[in-house]
């Protein structure tokens, strides 16, 4: 199962955002990978792996998960990538 999302964070995928997403991925019901047009797929539950993508605001991220819980896991993570996590209350 594949989902595509544009990174919303204006400051790009930095440490705080990546940490928040990695924690959500670790708690998600299925393992999720993320890739960009330039970088191969990496595990979404690794902060270092997420940062290695070098994703800037507007970068297209392709999320992939399989098996039970895949849809729910993709919904959760796509939602986070599509939110500017730096905005208060996000």
């Amino acid at each position, binding site marked *: 199962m594949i989902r595509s999302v544009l990174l919303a964070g204006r400051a*790009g*995928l*930095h440490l705080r955002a990546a940490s928040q997403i990695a924690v959500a991925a670790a708690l998600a019901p299925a393992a999720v990978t993320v890739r960009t047009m330039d970088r191969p797929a990496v595990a979404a539950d690794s902060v270092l792996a997420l940062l290695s993508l070098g994703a800037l605001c507007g970068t297209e991220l392709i999320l992939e998960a399989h098996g039970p819980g895949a849809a729910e896991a993709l919904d959760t993570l796509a939602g986070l990538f599509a939110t500017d996590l730096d905005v208060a209350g996000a």
Partner: protein
Amino acid sequence: MTTNVRPVLEVRGIRLHETAADRESAVHRCADVLEELGAVHPTYREAMLDREWAMSTYLGEGVAIPHGLDKSRALVRRDSLVVLRFPDGVDWDGHPVTVCVAIAARGDGHVALLAALAQILLDPERARELRETTDAEAIVAMLSQEDL
């Protein structure tokens, strides 16, 4: 607005023999070096400490990346990064840190730098080189040659 200019790393911004009693002292040393290079306004130091206490800047593999807050961008005079090595280690909220990569950046150029750093740290050999090399030029080369 986005800019994709990588912060500048110079050999004089690399310090291989630092010591710090704790995390706060290590962040102060990072701020000292950024100031010495004329990269930041003196009050950037406070933003670095605020950011550190808001959430640890520990990255992984013995590396932390002290930096300011989004709202402290105006205090950056010149996008820069400095690398301080602490051979004796510094306790970083439970993680032993031997390398600080301190960042002063106005745009989102630090995301590219972070990606380069993450790629190094995901490779055990290169991560070890970053922690152990005694060649400042080698560190500059490692952090400058990433293809992003």
